[in-house]
């Protein structure tokens, strides 16, 4: 009965073996499960990481076309920075200065095989280069020599087509002035390393190199050309050595044109003779002569009420110490303020100035900005030449524009303050100029409305009945004052070297635009009876400018100019002795009333 035991034992062993197998499988299975779990966790983590990354690259990126500024190419923040300098434009968006890409030619002499042949080929395209010098450059013992900078696109192509191994090109930028000489004194020029060396390029160098948008000027290139042409005509006609023409908007102080002649090519500033690169409108300091009577008359009217009827005795020369003030064509009678201004009487003006007094007159000059250098964004004038000690003699001579010398911009600046709306508004050349405290200036009043109105009438009278007749343009009610000043030489005043000028505005019942023309050393002509005074020389040039402006700016003429004049000047007529209107030639042939100031030289004053 043993076998059953055996069988039982075997079964037990089987059971134990099965249990043992199950145990091995179980532990294996357990291990596999934990590995799978581990893999699952790894995959889950990878999945989550990928999901996050996918979400990031698809959902978190801005769906906007990347701009040129933020792209990974070498694009700079703006065009001006790309080209190193902002463009300059006039008030209508006409380009006055820009920077263009150019190619410059250089050579690696080590790679030049036949210098003679290469030099010959280059000279066929660049004939202005010196052959011998070119050959010596190409045979130098170094790896880099400039051949020509700033090639034209055509020159670049032709030189490139030569295919010489040692010739290479470098891309650079160059300042370009499309208006050339027309705006040369105002815009100025830059050096080869693109730093401003003259004009606005110099004054606004930092602004131009840092600003992102173009610099907009108040200039109107059409009026600039009109002023340029009129000035050139006057200079040619009277064989003068130079001149200035300035046009300004009286109501805003914006300069519309500033011309100085002679001028220069801004692309070759270094080659310009000193006389051409001299900017007369901001650097030239001149005695202005009779145009200064505008300010002394305004000072008198402001101090003594607004009547032009006050009478002064101009029957005899005015004795000041050992000096004597005369009128060129003396009226030899008592004269009203209106008569004094109309006949440009030195005696009468000096008497008015004496009434004003030294301190008050100096104060007037100060508030008009005539006593210091004028500086604004883009404008920097020379300092005026003033008497070091103000005595009565200085007061009297300065009242008719001698013994005090200012720049043409000073004159224009003071003029718009005197005949505009009587507020202190300065000239400006740059639009959007945040430094210009316009609002503060507008609130400051220099002259009463009545004083301004009388001045406007007096200026109109100077054109209708006085020496400025050649400036008149029918229907535009031009008003102004001529001036003729002898220039100062090493030995005092020179009676054959004049500075003839006209400053005026239109329309005088509500002045909008001011025009200044100055011609340096004009020579008399047969058809001007040998005269080269402001009335003959500068007034007609101003008329040309005004006529052009009328069409450029679409300014309509007055409907009935004669009636408008009669109405406008009605209040002044009782104070004028000679009411008859004579022709310009009749008036000017008598000679411009002027001074003979040889007795005084402000530079000799202590």
């Amino acid at each position, binding site marked *: 009965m043993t076998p059953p035991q055996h069988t039982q034992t075997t079964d037990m062993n089987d059971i134990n073996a099965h249990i043992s197998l199950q145990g091995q499988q179980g532990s294996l299975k357990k291990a596999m499960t934990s590995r799978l779990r581990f893999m699952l966790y790894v*995959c889950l983590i990878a*999945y989550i990481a990928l999901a996050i990354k996918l979400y990031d690259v698809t959902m978190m990126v801005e769906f906007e076309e*990347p701009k040129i500024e933020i792209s990974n190419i070498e*694009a700079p923040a703006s065009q001006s920075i*790309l080209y190193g300098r902002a463009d300059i434009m006039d008030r209508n968006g006409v380009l006055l200065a820009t920077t263009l*890409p150019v190619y410059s030619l250089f050579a690696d002499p080590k790679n030049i095989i036949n210098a003679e042949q290469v030099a010959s080929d280059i000279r066929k395209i660049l004939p202005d280069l010196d052959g011998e010098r070119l050959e010596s450059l190409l045979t130098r013992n170094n790896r880099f020599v400039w051949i020509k900078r700033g090639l034209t696109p055509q020159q670049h192509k032709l030189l490139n087509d030569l295919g010489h191994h040692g010739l290479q090109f470098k891309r650079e930028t160059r300042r370009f002035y*499309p*208006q050339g000489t027309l705006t040369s004194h105002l815009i100025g020029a830059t050096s080869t390393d693109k730093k401003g060396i003259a004009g606005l390029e110099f004054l606004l160098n930092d602004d131009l190199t840092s600003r992102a948008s173009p610099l907009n000027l108040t200039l109107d290139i059409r009026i600039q050309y009109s002023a340029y042409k009129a000035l050139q005509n006057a200079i040619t006609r009277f064989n003068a050595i130079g001149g200035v023409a300035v046009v300004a908007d009286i109501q805003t102080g914006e300069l519309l044109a500033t011309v100085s002649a002679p001028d220069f090519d801004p692309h070759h500033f270094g080659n310009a003779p000193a006389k051409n690169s001299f900017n007369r409108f901001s650097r030239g300091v001149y005695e202005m002569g009779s145009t200064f009577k505008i300010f002394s008359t305004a000072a008198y009217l402001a101090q003594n009420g607004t009547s032009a009827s006050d009478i002064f005795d101009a029957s005899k020369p005015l004795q000041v110490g050992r000096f004597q003030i005369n009128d060129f064509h003396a009226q030899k009678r008592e004269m009203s303020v209106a008569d004094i201004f109309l006949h440009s009487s030195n005696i009468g003006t000096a008497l008015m100035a004496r009434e004003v007094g030294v301190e008050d007159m100096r104060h007037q000059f100060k508030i008009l900005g005539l006593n210091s250098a004028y500086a604004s964004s883009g404008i920097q004038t020379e300092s005026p030449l003033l008497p070091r000690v103000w005595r009565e003699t200085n007061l009297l001579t300065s009242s008719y524009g001698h013994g005090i010398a200012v720049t043409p911009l000073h004159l224009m600046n003071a003029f718009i303050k005197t005949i505009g709306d009587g507020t202190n508004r300065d000239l400006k050349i740059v639009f959007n100029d945040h430094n210009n405290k316009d609002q503060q200036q507008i609130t400051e009043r220099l002259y009463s409305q009545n004083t301004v109105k009388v001045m406007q009438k007096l200026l109109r009278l100077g054109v209708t009945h006085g020496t400025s007749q050649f400036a008149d343009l029918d229907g535009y009610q031009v008003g102004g004052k001529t001036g003729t000043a002898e220039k100062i030489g090493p030995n005092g005043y020179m009676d054959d070297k004049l500075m003839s000028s006209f400053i005026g505005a239109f329309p005088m019942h509500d002045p909008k635009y001011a025009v200044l023309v100055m011609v340096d050393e004009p020579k008399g002509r047969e058809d001007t009876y040998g005269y080269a005074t402001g009335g003959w020389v500068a007034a007609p040039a101003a008329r040309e400018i005004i006529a052009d402006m009328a069409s450029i700016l679409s300014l309509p003429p007055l409907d009935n100019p004669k009636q408008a004049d009669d109405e406008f000047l009605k209040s002044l007529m009782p104070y004028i002795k000679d009411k008859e209107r004579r022709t310009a030639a009749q008036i000017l042939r008598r000679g411009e009333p002027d001074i003979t100031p040889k007795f005084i030289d402000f530079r000799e004053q202590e």
Partner: protein
Amino acid sequence: MSTSVKYLCLLSILLCLALGAVVFWTGQHVHQLNTDIHIKNQQLLKEHERIRVLRAEWSLLNSPKRLDDLMERKKEQENPQQSQSGQFTDPQLKGTRINTPAAQQHNEGNE
């Protein structure tokens, strides 16, 4: 449990592979777009440059001084006469030999 874990694991691996492929594709696509933008930006810069040159040229050509010079030069030209104009069918123009330099050059070319 083990079967579900196995499938889940397989699914995760497949998902990871799929997502990896999508990320790779997206990365390549972005790279391609960046290249395109780079090229377009370069073209844009060139166009800007051309526009700058053209604007400068336009200002030069329209400078009031140049236009006035041109006007002065052309001012002296005589106005065209009535007799100078007509149609080719006009009898008086038939057989007329025009002797301007341009016409001569044209005729020589034809001959």
